């Protein structure tokens, strides 16, 4: 044997390899999975004990101050700032939480890769009938049955016994002796692996979505207003109609929005429902996020000349609209008067005229006639998620794998006979085991078929 010094290049390389092997062993260890799962469970639970920063406020950049004020009011400024300093108000975004999550995904991937070859070998390698090992390895259940008759009698007994437990033996004659293997559901051993692979696919899909996905929330859009996607300006939405379907008692039944989608000079109408996003060109999606009151204005001169027609503005809480003559209109719901609107006309920062009247009816405002009809505005979430197909595929693979692993079972029994004796063996427990009841039936049937006195059953070594 050639000795290598630790300081030599070969020694350093061997040391590195040993470290890498050790690291791989740790990373692909099932015990690491267990501890990471427990750590993630603990951190996830901890995050529910204090209010977390709402994602909607973070996305739209609104309500942040309100949320912080509400937190201070509940916990007091000192505790609120302490929680903030510990990162507990955004625990799921802390480096610690993300590190545990990433480590768990890496561990899942390593476990999958480390066990792939073994699982593949189990799936591919068709076991051959063979004489029993001597001695039997630990964890094996063995039965010896007295056989009266020759090789043909042994084979007949084996076939009868296997039929009784729903298995078909594969027999090989070895002169006056013979051996068999009977099994079912060997492929179920790959279920766990498939389940892990599915989870890795889900993680890849989520990572793709985070890295290359796009997401934005539109400002309030009233009828006729347009919005171009920030990452694909050639795709634009124009709000056409929003309506609320109601039950007879007035409760909302469904929210329906029609948008005109323009792309490459063509326009198509799409419907967006809560829970049913519209598909836009380029793999983009539009989701209905929220809605609120808006107002549609028709403005005419006293002689009936249209100045502005069907311009919609969100009433959030008031709408403001510039007119061609340099004045502006401010519209809001009339306080304490349901169904009525209050309209003001401003010139150079000074109030010129105002009036209140029923929505939808003409309202005289100096030399203008204003018709303000109450309408709706909508807020949409638009997104592009290249990882979605990966996530869906991963979910299906994981569920299929879990179903196979949890539902099916690999059962195998082996045997060998020669003059005067039939030996049967299977694993004591776990994957590849025949199961206690089936084993008892198999041995009983084999004993009857062999026609000899009951044999003896050996516990596993």
């Amino acid at each position, binding site marked *: 044997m050639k000795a290598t010094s630790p300081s030599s290049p070969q020694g350093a390389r061997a040391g590195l390899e040993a470290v890498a092997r050790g690291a791989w062993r740790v990373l692909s260890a*099932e*015990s690491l*999975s*267990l501890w990471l*799962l*427990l750590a*993630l*469970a603990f951190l*996830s*639970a901890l*995050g*529910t*004990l*204090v*209010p*977390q920063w*709402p*994602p909607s406020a973070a996305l739209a950049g609104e309500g942040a101050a309100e949320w912080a004020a509400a937190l201070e009011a*509940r916990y007091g400024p000192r505790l609120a700032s302490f929680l903030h300093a510990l990162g507990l108000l955004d625990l*799921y975004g802390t480096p610690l939480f993300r590190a545990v999550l990433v480590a768990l995904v890496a561990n899942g991937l390593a476990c999958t890769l480390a066990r792939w070859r073994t699982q593949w070998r189990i799936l591919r390698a068709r076991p051959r009938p063979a004489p029993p090992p001597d001695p039997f390895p630990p964890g094996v259940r063995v039965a010896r049955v007295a056989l009266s008759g020759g090789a043909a009698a042994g084979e007949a007994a084996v076939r009868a016994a296997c039929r009784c437990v729903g298995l078909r033996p594969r027999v090989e004659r070895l002169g006056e002796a013979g051996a068999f293997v009977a099994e079912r559901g060997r492929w179920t051993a790959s279920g766990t692996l498939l389940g892990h692979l599915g989870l890795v696919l889900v993680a890849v899909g*989520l990572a793709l979505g985070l890295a290359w996905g796009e*997401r934005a929330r539109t400002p309030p859009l009233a009828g006729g207003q347009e919005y171009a996607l920030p990452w694909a300006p050639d795709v634009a939405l124009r709000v056409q109609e929003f309506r609320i379907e109601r*039950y007879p008692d007035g*409760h*909302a*039944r*469904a*929210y329906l929005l029609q948008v005109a989608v323009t792309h490459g000079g063509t326009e198509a109408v799409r419907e967006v429902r*809560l*829970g*049913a*996003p519209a598909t836009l060109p380029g793999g983009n*999606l539009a*989701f209905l*996020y929220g809605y609120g009151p808006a107002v549609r204005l028709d403005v005419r001169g006293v002689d009936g000349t249209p100045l502005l027609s069907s311009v919609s503005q969100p009433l959030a809480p008031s709408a403001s609209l510039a007119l061609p003559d340099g004045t502006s209109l401010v519209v809001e719901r009339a306080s304490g008067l349901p169904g009525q609107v209050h309209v003001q006309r401003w010139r150079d920062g000074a109030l010129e005229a105002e009036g209140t009247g029923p929505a939808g009816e003409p309202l005289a405002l100096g030399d203008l006639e204003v018709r303000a009809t109450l309408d709706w505005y909508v807020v949409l*979430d638009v*997104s592009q998620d290249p990882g*979605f197909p990966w*996530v*869906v595929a991963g*979910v299906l693979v*994981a*569920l299929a794998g*879990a*179903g196979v692993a*949890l*539902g099916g079972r690999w059962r195998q029994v082996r045997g060998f006979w020669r003059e005067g004796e039939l030996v049967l063996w299977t694993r004591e427990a776990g994957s590849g085991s025949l199961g206690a009841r089936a084993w008892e039936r198999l041995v009983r049937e084999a004993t009857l078929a062999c026609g000899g006195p009951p044999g003896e059953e050996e516990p596993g070594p």
Partner: protein
Amino acid sequence: MNAAEAWAFGGAGALWAGALAAALLGRARGWEEKATLALAAAGSACTLAGLGARGLAIQYWPLTDRYAFTQAFALATVLTALALDARDRHRVLRLGLGVALALWADAQWLLPLGLRRAALPVPALRHYWLPLHAGSAAVAYAGLTLGSLAAVWAARQGDGALQVLARRAIRWGYWWLSASIFLGAVWARQTWARFWGWDPKETWSLVTWLLYTAWFHALGLPAWQGRRQAVLLALGLAALGFTFFGLEWLARQVGLFSLHLF
């Protein structure tokens, strides 16, 4: 709650109580065995009829409120116990009937009156994902509760056959819990453009899933046999119970908002 629902759910409770009494008092292979099975099945049919009546009353899938979900959880527990119990001399069925009666009592007597009324879901919940997500959660809760309790019982008595049944129930419940979480995530993405929102209820479902996943991993580790596995199962069951019962209390205490609280 209309009269049909009241009769159906009331009848289910009485029949299950009768089944439990017959199972506790009777011999393993006497007429009591047939009575236990018949009463348990009849009680389940009554619960199914009650859920049907509730659905008809609101013209929608009935699993839209806490009351209906609790009844569905109880029903799934009895059905799971019936399916598992075929060769187990009613030990699992007794356990299942006990759990179902506790759930039934919670729904009938402990739940505030406002939460017992059938109500139409808000538009965001009116989707075919709702029965898939909530239905799979009810089946999952049933399997995990029954399996965990049976496993603890089996560990105390050193009963191998019961341990096998308990693991089968946990495997069944775990698969459905995974399905429920995945279905909920895809539904959330279709409605709110995101898979996950760290809502307290969904987070605790994840905690439950993580703990049971940890238990599955522990099965193959020599250092985690015996008591450590039992502790993991107890933690998983506690997390499940907290998801179902405790979260409402916690939400009120610390001012949490959850889309899943009614």
